[in-house]
């Protein structure tokens, strides 16, 4: 029975991978059909071959861009299906921990950026790239205003700027483009001048962290971060911090890339040696600020599970309820 299920699962995987190539081949045929029909229409109107081809390209627009954006939609769908099949299979054959880790790992690509700073000024999007500020014209051929519109549609007008700054991979996804490890950016000098295309710009977590820090002044004054926590319990014993996440106690290795020893040092420097445990638990947003990282609605927890597996949990909410629960566990007499 188990062998049959495993075989079916492997067959599904194999078929999905080969279908991916077939879908992209089909897309090429589909676009070629459209271009051919446009060219034939031009010839029928009396244009010569060269003119007909030029007219077809004018009406169709950038073929490579259309292909890239459509392929992005196709790949995104297949990617989700693959994840579902792989996870389902791993759970079926008895590896729920591996499946869980894989699911978590798959989310980590979202916390990356190709630029190190973002500003929204007078209707333009300015980004910092290679130490200079530029006007952003497009990423992967998608115009900056289209990206902004996609961000506003997907996440709401209030979060459009935040998401475009901090979650550009998700915004590209919302615009129908699957972000890879690198992207192309079309940037124009802020002082004026012709736009330049920067190909193969790496999407890195370090860039994204710098965007986050750059926007810290926006968040630092936000009262929302004064009494929130991403976990419901915390203890510090012999330099090891253990936190309660979803009812399970894990060793805390890092928050948003800031490793535990650095968090401890920041808490000590900002609030004193005797209050480290209290501040890590009840005022983690302030500790993160002291460590040079601005807090946000969600954080990434790097944990070591009770089974000794190192995992990253992204999108963990920083909320008041968790902080209240943590506070009550630390002050039972006052409850």
């Amino acid at each position, binding site marked *: 029975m188990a062998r049959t299920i495993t075989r079916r699962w492997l067959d599904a995987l194999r078929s999905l991978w080969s279908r991916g190539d077939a879908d992209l081949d*089909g897309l090429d045929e*589909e676009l070629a*059909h459209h271009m051919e029909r446009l060219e*034939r229409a031009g010839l029928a109107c009396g244009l010569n071959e060269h003119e007909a081809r030029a007219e077809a390209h004018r009406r169709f*627009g950038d*073929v490579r861009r259309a*292909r890239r954006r*459509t392929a992005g*939609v196709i790949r995104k769908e297949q990617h989700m299906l693959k994840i579902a099949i792989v996870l389902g299979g791993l759970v079926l054959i008895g590896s729920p921990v591996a499946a869980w880790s894989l699911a978590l790992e798959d989310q980590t690509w979202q916390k990356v950026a190709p630029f190190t700073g973002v500003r929204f000024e007078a209707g333009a999007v300015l980004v910092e790239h290679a130490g200079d500020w530029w006007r952003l014209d497009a990423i992967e051929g998608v115009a900056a205003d289209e990206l902004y519109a996609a961000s506003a*549609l997907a996440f709401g007008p209030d979060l459009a700027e935040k998401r475009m700054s901090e979650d550009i991979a998700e915004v590209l996804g919302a615009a129908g483009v699957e972000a890879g490890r690198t992207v192309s950016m079309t940037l124009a000098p802020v002082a004026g001048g012709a736009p330049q295309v920067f190909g193969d710009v790496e999407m890195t977590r370090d860039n994204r962290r710098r965007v986050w820090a750059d926007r810290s002044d926006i968040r630092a004054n936000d009262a929302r971060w004064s009494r929130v926590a991403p976990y419901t319990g915390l203890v510090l014993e012999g330099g090891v911090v253990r936190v309660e996440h979803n009812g399970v106690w894990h060793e805390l290795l890092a928050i948003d890339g800031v490793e535990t020893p650095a968090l401890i040092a920041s808490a000590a420097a900002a609030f004193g040696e005797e209050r480290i445990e209290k501040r890590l638990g009840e005022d983690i947003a302030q500790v993160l600020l002291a460590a040079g990282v601005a807090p946000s609605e969600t954080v990434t927890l790097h944990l070591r599970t009770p089974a000794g597996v190192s995992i990253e949990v992204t999108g963990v909410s920083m909320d008041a309820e968790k902080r209240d629960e943590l506070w009550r566990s630390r002050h039972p007499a006052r409850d």
Partner: protein
Amino acid sequence: MPDAADILPGTLDLMILAVLAGAPEHGYGIARAIHARSGASLLVEEGTLYPALRRLEKKGLLEGAWRQSEANRRARYYTLSAEGSRRLAGETDRWKRSAGAVERVIAGVAPGPQQERA
């Protein structure tokens, strides 16, 4: 002929669904239908149709299948699904209400002079 205008954001999906309410069509045919039905008033960069078609297909509003085209070539035809028909009815109603409201707001404004072409 009026100057060609860009498509308003969010309306491409609605127009694709409306064209396909008549009969299954391939991408080229959809582009031609939008062009013809708008009286050549709308400027559609035809390549933008394809991400929209695949997105609508992914949402279950369209179904795509390969068939022989009228030009005797293999082409991918899109058909409106039952869910797509329901969405089209809802979005059409919403669009008409919005457009009617805007129309009433601008009703008293006199049209500006025609811009001279270079």
